[in-house]
């Protein structure tokens, strides 16, 4: 991994963390654990289409670790970890079928898989009773995933525009 790439990945991780902290300050109207916009997903979806699988995975795992420390909720790490493993595995496979112009579709699958990973972790820790949350998470995952994917698409478009101007 060269220095330029390392710097880019570090900046992306930093941006994702800032987005995470900002999102923590937004009051969540839905008192259901696991329901959130997951704005940091914008960075993951973007990175997925611009960096290697290994690089994206390293970035995401460093981010969720630091996010759990910053949020003062280490339990959250286990849920984020399961969620991220599901989400990254799914999106890396789907990347072959989905081109960059349809990022939002990849993002919807990513978000839904993230929620499924979280529920899996919750079933192990809390017992099977929590499975009733799954349908709510499917709905919120679809909406949040489409939203963050759409923003990532706009970002990709703008970045490409800037690159073209510079050249």
């Amino acid at each position, binding site marked *: 991994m060269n220095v330029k790439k390392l710097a880019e990945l570090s900046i992306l991780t930093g941006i994702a963390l800032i987005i995470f902290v900002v999102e923590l300050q937004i009051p969540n109207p839905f008192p259901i654990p696991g329901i959130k916009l997951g704005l940091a997903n914008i960075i993951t979806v973007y990175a997925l289409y611009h960096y290697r699988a290994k690089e994206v995975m390293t970035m995401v795992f460093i981010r969720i670790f630091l996010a759990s420390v910053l949020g*003062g909720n280490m339990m959250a790490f286990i849920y984020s970890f399961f969620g991220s493993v599901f989400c990254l595995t799914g999106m890396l496979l789907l990347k072959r079928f*989905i081109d960059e112009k349809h990022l939002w*579709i990849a993002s919807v699958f990513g978000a839904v898989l993230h929620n499924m990973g979280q529920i899996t972790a919750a079933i192990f820790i809390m017992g099977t*009773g929590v499975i*009733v949350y799954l349908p*709510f998470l*499917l*709905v919120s*995952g*679809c909406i949040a995933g489409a939203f963050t994917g759409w923003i990532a698409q706009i970002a990709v478009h703008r970045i490409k525009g800037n690159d073209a101007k510079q050249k």
Partner: protein
Amino acid sequence: MKNKVLIGICIAIFLIGVIGSALVLFAPHGTKVNIVQDGAVLYTFDLSVTEDQTLEIEYNGRTNIVQIENGKIRVVEADCPDKTCIRMGWLETGSLPIVCLPNHLSIEFADEREDLDAVIK
């Protein structure tokens, strides 16, 4: 073509979610509740006959204070970082449990099937 199939799957997931949520929200529930920690039932109450009280439930030095009042149950205080359990309010919606993920606690309606089993036996 491929995209259409994938979008179709997204829509299907969304609809399954909506239907599932409606089923959970409108599911009938009884008056028996279980307080569960780490998947094991700590207490069972029949709220229709339980006197008003508060319980302190500990997990690794952190506590949740659970209140039972007028046949309803909720978490009033918690040491958890997210406080979602408090914000969930009274346990009354469909079959939706109150959970505190950081403290491994959930308060859920006891499965109606158990009652049915008891009747059959």
